[in-house]
């Protein structure tokens, strides 16, 4: 798994490539959580993630709690159908703001 972080139009874009599992999710979370400052706008781009286990759900939950606590905004983009299925089965899907593409995600955070 690799994480690339960049800023576009004051939005922090977190771009993950590879599998998010019990090994890589805690590593990703350690990189991402310090970025979620008060009032932040964050877009998590999952379009290069083919697989995510419940460890990834836990990471998303931490991100959700921290951005909500900091009056920030978090948006998820590029979720595969299978990852959306996992989020749906566990009741996660409805609690996140989701867009299909990075372009749509950035537009919605403006």
């Amino acid at each position: 798994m690799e994480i690339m972080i960049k800023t576009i139009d004051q939005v922090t874009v977190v771009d993950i490539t590879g599998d998010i599992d019990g090994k890589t999710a805690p590593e990703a979370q350690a990189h991402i959580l310090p970025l979620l400052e008060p009032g932040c706008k964050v877009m998590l781009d999952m379009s290069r993630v083919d697989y995510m286990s419940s460890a990834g759900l836990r990471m998303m939950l931490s991100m959700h709690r921290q951005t909500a606590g900091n009056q920030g905004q978090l948006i998820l983009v590029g979720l595969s159908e299978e990852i959306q299925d996992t989020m749906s089965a566990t009741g996660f899907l409805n609690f996140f703001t989701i867009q299909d593409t990075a372009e749509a995600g950035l537009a919605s955070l403006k």
Partner: protein
Amino acid sequence: MGPLIVPGTLDSLSVIGKYIMDIAAKAGLDKKAAYRLRLAVDEIATNIVIHGYDEANRQGDLELRTELNEADLTIFLEDTGASYTPGQFSDRTDLHLPLEERQIGGLGVYLAMQGVDKFHYEHFEGRNRHTFVVNRTPT
């Protein structure tokens, strides 16, 4: 396919994932069924490493075997870690609650049980065995 024996560490999860996807392809499972099987085995393997080995200060392997016949694909996952009862985590009564009020533990076992057609756990002679069965869709 032959068995796979790997150390009971989180580093082994990606190797296990590849092994499961290979056998799923050989069994002709569709994309979603293959994904759910990988997820099921990965969730349980993760729990074994964290709870059965690490937290119990034990070390050991994860051993996977497969059986393929006309009707179904069966995966056996065995370890020598501390035993636990997956069933105790399977009741998810809080899935409708807002995320702020959730207990997060046990989601993996829930996904494992949801992801396959039959799921079975047994403990014998100091070993734990998880069995995952997926029906092969007729072609």
